[in-house]
């Protein structure tokens, strides 16, 4: 597998660590209503679609960037690769 790192170009997946569903970016606010239920959902419930999925990959043997990779789990086609920190900052700005 090759991942098109937004800063470094195509890199072999062996340089990366996989961490699954990118929903881990959306950690609940501990002060919010029903926060315990939300944390249980955050901690334990993952989507595992046959098709397009947003996943977290960590470039451990590279620039140490956490990436959000949009990947089709059936065809293994990679549709988009983004820096997690940019996505999260954008979300924070909203």
């Amino acid at each position: 597998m090759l991942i098109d790192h937004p800063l470094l170009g195509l890199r072999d997946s062996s340089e990366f660590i996989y961490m699954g569903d990118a929903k881990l970016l959306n950690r609940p606010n501990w002060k919010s209503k029903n926060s315990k239920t939300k944390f249980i959902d955050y901690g334990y419930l993952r989507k595992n679609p046959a098709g397009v999925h947003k996943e977290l990959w960590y470039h451990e043997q590279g620039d140490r960037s956490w990436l959000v990779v949009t990947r089709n789990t059936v065809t293994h086609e990679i549709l988009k690769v983004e820096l997690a920190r940019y996505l999260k900052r954008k979300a924070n700005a909203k």
Partner: protein
Amino acid sequence: MAKLVLKIEKPLNGYTKVINKIKIAEYQFDSLISLAIPLNSQRKCKLNFQKSLGNPMPNIENSIINKSGILGFRIGLDLLFICNPSYSSFAKKTVPVLKQAFYITDQTGGWCGVVVDGDRVIEMLERICPLNLSLKIFAIGNVKRTVMDHLNVIIFRQTEKKFILFSPSSSSGSFLKSIEISSRNI
């Protein structure tokens, strides 16, 4: 009691050897520091870098060598390394200036440098380096971080057939063995 003096030991004790016409030698340096660019300080750091080292701050995976022979390379969005090969006033004069803009971490003891040089160096590196070493992709002066034989390695291309490989000092013996085996195996 005689005063205790601590002697510096380099990870490979100045190793040098030629295997299949590939020169393998420990790359010795006086200091190796990393510079982290604080949040929202790219501009300030660019100016500071130019002022401190006399060269523009390199882009990611690129490098500079300044007039004193100091090698600077950028390995991430907010991370650079400065490798000072010779004993000089660098630590006393340049580092304090850099500190005004960057977060500095001394990593001199953390890395081991190995120079590999020779006509068959690409053939040798093909055995451990997953990166495309074609000059079109990996130009002279480029620097990349990858994994070779299970180890984290920063690879810098000095000329077409000469590279400096930096790997963690604690495993430098294993990495040297990897390079030796690769050189013998071609």
